């Protein structure tokens, strides 16, 4: 099926604007905008190359290698892939995790959420939010924030450092950790490690509270901007705990419609394909998932912090739950669909993760020695986890020789595919009419993309950078205007 503005009636009569982050290798995005003769946006498509090659890459490998191998898929959220794969392999080895194993894994996951959300808010989103979309680009970069808000930037870096220390302690190494293994973990915490993390956790909780407050005040300072920018209505999908509370590590699938009514609840993660269909479209490498029960027209949804915070019934940590209720009050009893609200809800989740870490660090099970459990062997395993950017699904089949014969991954960027297209369409309609490409046009598109922070090229990064280019191409394919940013080589 197609959506409004996705496929114009007579595309041959349109000119094309392409926004193309030119990647060297794999994993790049491109936005194409087709304008009509009156310079109105008629067609918008966001293209992102998905990592389908990885699923081939993993076939034929023994299942016990998978939790370690999958970390090489993403340099930003390797822990999420590590844990989703480990959960899937748990099913294959028939494991019900020991208390120590589950708590060590949860601690690892909360460290990942903390460090990823801190990076996004303090060093990607904050320059936009604090300086404004129309401010000069030099002020809206990752490190310019530190120049004008040194304490804010410092806290962002230190929050990220703390999260990474949690990962190092639980996964064994700062990068390429091996902590989660089939059926459990290969280490627990020592008393010294726990004491080290406990020493700073109250600062972390305090800084996370400050971040939530910053995000809330920004929204309240300019409601028309924050509520309206790129806003579109959609359903929302996430996992929730059996009692309906927010749970980022385990639970069942729940979806709400755009009005907040529950569409699907207690969905079995291990049979996700009965609930979610991955549609292929000829113009995109990335699939378009939708809820089978609603079909492709109405069944698409958004995932990630904005969906999770509104999909759950409550949060079991007091500060984050108070922040959630404040957010719901802001919405006036209706779901908030503004993409910029991702930033606010991201901070609520960061506070949630900080509180969970604080609580877990008082649990002696973290120091336990019962690390692994196995049971009846199965041929299929599915692991679902809420990664920083949204629901992450790993699905594997193994043969009698313990080798992977089939793998299917649905990453958060794939879940959000249609949602990101919608956000860009709204922005394009408002800001991209006209024949001249400007920096401001590109900025607004980038702000919409940044709210979701899709994985574009996280599996490799070799020097060369990822420029973002805007091209204006006529119906014959001739480029009539082009705008590129971010392609200057590193100073050397």
């Amino acid at each position: 099926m197609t959506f409004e503005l996705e496929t114009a009636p007579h595309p041959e009569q349109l000119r094309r604007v392409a926004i193309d982050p030119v990647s060297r290798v794999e994993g790049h995005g491109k936005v194409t905008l087709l304008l009509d003769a009156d310079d109105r946006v008629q067609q918008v498509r966001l293209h992102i190359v998905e990592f389908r090659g990885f699923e081939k890459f993993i076939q034929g490998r023994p299942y016990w290698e998978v939790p370690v191998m999958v970390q090489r898929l993403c340099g930003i959220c390797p822990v999420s892939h590590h844990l989703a794969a480990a959960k899937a392999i748990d099913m294959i080895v028939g494991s019900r995790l020991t208390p120590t194993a589950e708590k060590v894994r949860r601690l690892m996951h909360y460290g990942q959420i903390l460090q990823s959300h801190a990076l996004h808010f303090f060093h990607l989103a904050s320059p936009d939010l604090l300086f404004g979309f129309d401010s000069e680009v030099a002020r809206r970069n990752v490190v310019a924030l530190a120049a004008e808000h040194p304490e804010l930037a410092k806290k962002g870096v230190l929050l990220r450092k703390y999260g990474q220390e949690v990962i190092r302690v639980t996964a064994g190494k700062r990068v390429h950790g091996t902590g989660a293994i089939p059926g459990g973990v290969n280490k627990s915490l020592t008393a010294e490690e726990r004491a080290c993390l406990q020493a700073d956790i109250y600062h972390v909780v305090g800084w996370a509270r400050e971040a939530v407050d910053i995000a809330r005040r920004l929204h309240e300072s300019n409601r028309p901007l924050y509520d309206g920018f790129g806003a579109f209505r959609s359903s929302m999908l996430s996992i929730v705990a059996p009692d309906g509370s927010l749970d980022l590590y385990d639970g069942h699938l729940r979806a709400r419609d755009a009005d907040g009514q529950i569409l699907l609840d207690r969905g079995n993660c291990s049979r996700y394909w009965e609930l979610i269909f991955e549609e292929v479209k000829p113009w995109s490498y990335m699939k378009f998932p939708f809820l089978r029960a609603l079909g492709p027209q109405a069944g698409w949804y958004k995932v990630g912090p904005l969906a999770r915070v509104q999909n759950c019934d409550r949060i079991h940590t007091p500060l984050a739950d108070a922040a959630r209720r404040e957010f719901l009050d802001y919405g006036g009893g209706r779901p908030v669909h503004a993409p910029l609200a991702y930033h606010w809800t991201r901070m609520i989740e960061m506070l949630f993760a900080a509180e969970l870490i604080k609580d877990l660090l008082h649990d002696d099970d973290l120091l336990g020695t019962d690390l692994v459990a196995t049971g009846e062997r199965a041929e299929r395993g599915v692991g679902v986890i809420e990664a920083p950017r949204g629901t992450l699904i790993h699905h594997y089949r193994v043969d009698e020789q313990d080798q992977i014969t089939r793998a299917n991954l649905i990453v958060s960027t794939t879940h959000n595919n249609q949602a990101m297209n919608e956000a860009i369409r709204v922005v394009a309609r408002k800001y991209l009419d006209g024949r001249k490409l400007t920096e401001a046009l590109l900025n607004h598109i980038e702000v919409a993309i940044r709210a979701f922070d899709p994985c574009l090229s996280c599996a490799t990064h070799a020097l060369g950078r990822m420029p973002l280019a805007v091209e204006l191409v006529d119906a014959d394919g001739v480029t009539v205007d082009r705008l590129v940013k971010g392609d200057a080589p590193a100073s050397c």
Partner: protein
Amino acid sequence: MLSLQPPEDAAPVLVLAVGNPSRGDDALGPLAAQRLAALGLPGVDVLTDFQLQVEHALDLLGRRRIVFVDATASGEAPFALAALTAAGDTSHTTHSLSPAAVLFAYRRLTGKEPPPARLLAIRGHAFELGAPLTADAAANLDAALAALVAELQAGAEQGDVQPLPA
């Protein structure tokens, strides 16, 4: 942990190599780090990661010199070794920083100039998932490592590191 104080055990020289070991020639950085670490140079810390991020500015604390090592998809072969200047960065994703931006982040976070830094950019040719290192890249790595060791030995003359045994 949550401070900008340098760790007491920070070696004077940091070699910070980045790359994904599973993506063909993107493994040049991690392989360089692996081989350099095996030499056990006193006074040299070797770190590796998938890509650079803001927190790597903290790894620069307490150092006298920094060498970034990375694969390059379009630079000169076999490698380029040049001084690096702090510079701001712009991006539409969280997914990486340039070495210059890490230095810039250090300056902004600490209020001090970052340690002198060099960038060793090793030319790679193929970056497909699951691909092995290409023969050309392997040769480039040999040449680059020789230059890197020479660079570190030059540093030894300045008292940063101990010279390699003959």
